[in-house]
């Protein structure tokens, strides 16, 4: 009796394994027909748009708006009959902004034969995943990865982005502080993150290259998520900084700005587009007044932008989150490229992306040979009476 009982288990396990193998391998085969166009009788196979980014974890708020943008664009396109007569399906994958998960996600999207990928969100995760997309010849477009080498190194010909890179923003911020505001002593603060520190390092570099016009009086990283930043605020004060250039996102920025204003400090505060978020004004309230932030050029007058925002409001009942417009633009650009290319072929897509111009919420854009968007510019904004207002360049 005992023997039979014991014997059963390996058998069951073996059977289960066999079942799983047959079952799973079937599952693997299922998407295969996507490759064989039987255009005449069957409906055309769908186009697969991968969407990858952080959808859980502490950075989820930077990844989810992109998913929503993709959903809305795809809904609209599908409602009109799709692209090239093919419907678009989304393959949404979460990677928590972790490089190791990003490579798994990339592998998954590649094995599921995603035609194009919208993502990833964080520069680090994007860098990790790009190698895989490159080998598989999948066009990848990020709405938010601003790390300069992604395009400038020339290592990833399959990569595009609808956001300007960190160095462009840093240049703008530094020039603005030195020329427009005519300030000299500048403290550069960052949040130690990929994005924030990258921006801050460029700001420091440009300040040092300014030939004595500007001087870095402080260069330090803060710990994101810390309960308060009074010590660093004191240090900025102690250093006698006339302006603070901050690399990072709005949650920390609002804490620092509030701290500075409460200590009655007059130093100007200049942040990157991570700070140019309406939540920043809502959180920092009256203390946000006067804060500068770089951001994509004002597009709120463009009808497409209004349309995109209205669509989000109608579908989710709230204003869109971070990088929503960039993601919306990226989705439109990808769809447009597929349409113009007439297929999802890599080389054709590449040509289409680099030659065709497309109307997006960011304006009319195309892509240069490195993959950076042309037509997406940055402007300096200032909080005036509770809203970001574009500061004229001259």
């Amino acid at each position: 009796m005992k023997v039979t009982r014991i014997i059963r288990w390996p058998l069951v396990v073996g059977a289960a394994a066999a079942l799983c193998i047959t079952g799973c391998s079937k599952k693997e085969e299922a998407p295969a027909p996507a490759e064989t166009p039987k255009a005449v009788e069957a409906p055309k196979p769908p186009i697969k748009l991968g969407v990858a980014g952080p959808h859980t974890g502490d950075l989820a708020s930077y990844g989810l708006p992109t998913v929503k943008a993709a959903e809305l664009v795809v809904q609209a396109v599908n409602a009109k009959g799709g692209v090239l007569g093919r419907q678009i399906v989304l393959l949404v994958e979460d990677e928590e902004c972790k490089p190791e998960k990003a490579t798994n996600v990339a592998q998954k999207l590649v094995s599921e034969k995603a035609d194009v990928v919208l993502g990833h969100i964080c520069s680090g995760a994007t860098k990790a995943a790009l190698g895989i997309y490159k080998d598989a010849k999948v066009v990848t477009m990020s709405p938010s990865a601003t790390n300069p080498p992604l395009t400038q190194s020339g290592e990833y010909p399959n990569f595009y982005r609808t956001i300007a890179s960190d160095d462009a923003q840093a240049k703008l911020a530094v020039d603005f502080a030195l020329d427009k505001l005519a300030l000299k002593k500048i403290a550069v603060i960052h949040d130690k993150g990929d994005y924030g520190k990258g921006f801050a390092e460029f700001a420091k570099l440009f300040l040092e290259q300014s030939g004595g016009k500007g001087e870095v009086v402080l260069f330090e990283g803060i710990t994101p998520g810390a309960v308060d930043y009074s010590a660093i605020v004191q240090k900025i004060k102690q250093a006698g900084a006339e302006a603070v250039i901050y690399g990072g996102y709005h949650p920390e920025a609002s804490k620092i700005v509030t701290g500075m204003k409460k200590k009655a400090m007059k130093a100007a505060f200049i942040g990157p587009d991570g700070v140019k978020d309406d939540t920043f004004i809502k959180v920092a309230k009256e203390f946000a007044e006067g804060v500068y932030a770089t951001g994509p050029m004002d597009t709120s007058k463009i009808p497409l932008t209004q349309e995109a925002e209205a669509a989000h409001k109608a579908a989710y009942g709230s204003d869109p989150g971070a990088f929503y417009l960039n993601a919306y633009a990226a989705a439109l650009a990808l769809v447009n490229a597929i349409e113009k290319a007439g297929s999802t072929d890599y080389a054709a897509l590449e040509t289409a992306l680099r030659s065709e111009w497309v109307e997006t919420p960011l304006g009319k854009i195309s892509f240069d040979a490195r993959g950076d968007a042309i037509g997406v510019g940055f402007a300096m904004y200032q909080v005036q009476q509770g809203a970001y207002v574009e500061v004229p360049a001259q």
Partner: protein
Amino acid sequence: MSYFIELLLGGLTRGSIYALIALGYTMVYGIIELINFAHGEIYMIGAFTGLIAASVLTMMGLEGPAVLVLACVLAVVYAAAYGVTVEKIAYQPLRKAPRLSPLISAIGMSIFLQNYVLLAQTSDFLPFPSLIPEFAFLAPVSHLIGSGEVVIILTTAVAMVALTLLVKYTKVGKAMRATAQDKTMAMLVGINVNRVISATFVIGSSLAALGGVLIASHVGQINFFIGFIAGIKAFTAAVLGGIGSIPGAVLGAMVLGLTESFATGYVSSDYEDVFAFALLVLILIFRPAGLLGRTKAQKV
């Protein structure tokens, strides 16, 4: 000199924030020797409940300190309820389990609660209204210290004294000490151990919620992830002071807060946490049971 004083005050505020959370940690540890990783999440849930209560109350037309008080009360009630429920579900069945099992259960609970709030509410940062009124008498020193800081420091001080008295003189407190020393013995002399443990969770969670509302109001924003870092720091503070000791938790938190503040001020904020942890290692090398912890005599 004023730079020094400002750093000192900043450090004290930060220390008080850690202390409010560390007190709950240390009480739970003192009684069931469990590192309650979900404690940070209770703090976060308290803050969220406070935010929701405050917003609803404000929209109903309430104003001023009444909103603060009611929001605090509701946050405390709910956080206590969550604390007790978490204990009943995730820790109570594990009383007799191997020592590390409740720890993993606590980590699981922490992940669960974080994602629960993420799904039920939002992933975005939410602005938190500043409920603490500006005190007029602080106006002359407003560049040094604000009313938010004062309220937090005072609350911590009061909480510490009240807790010490509670543990020392009340019946519940005595039952707690008895349970901490020897559960079986406590049961034999007629103490309802489960109820005492529940009471500990109620007190610890209430303090965390109170801290949550005050700190969120001081800082001005919350999201579902704030409990994690606060929890780690508070845990560090509790161990630094000697885990299980109430004044120890406050002392540890103050030392931690001041270290971070001075490290940022005089060295570099890049390595703020490195200094904090390095100090912890140093102190534990010379006092292996923390600053105020008692080294148990080892019986052979």
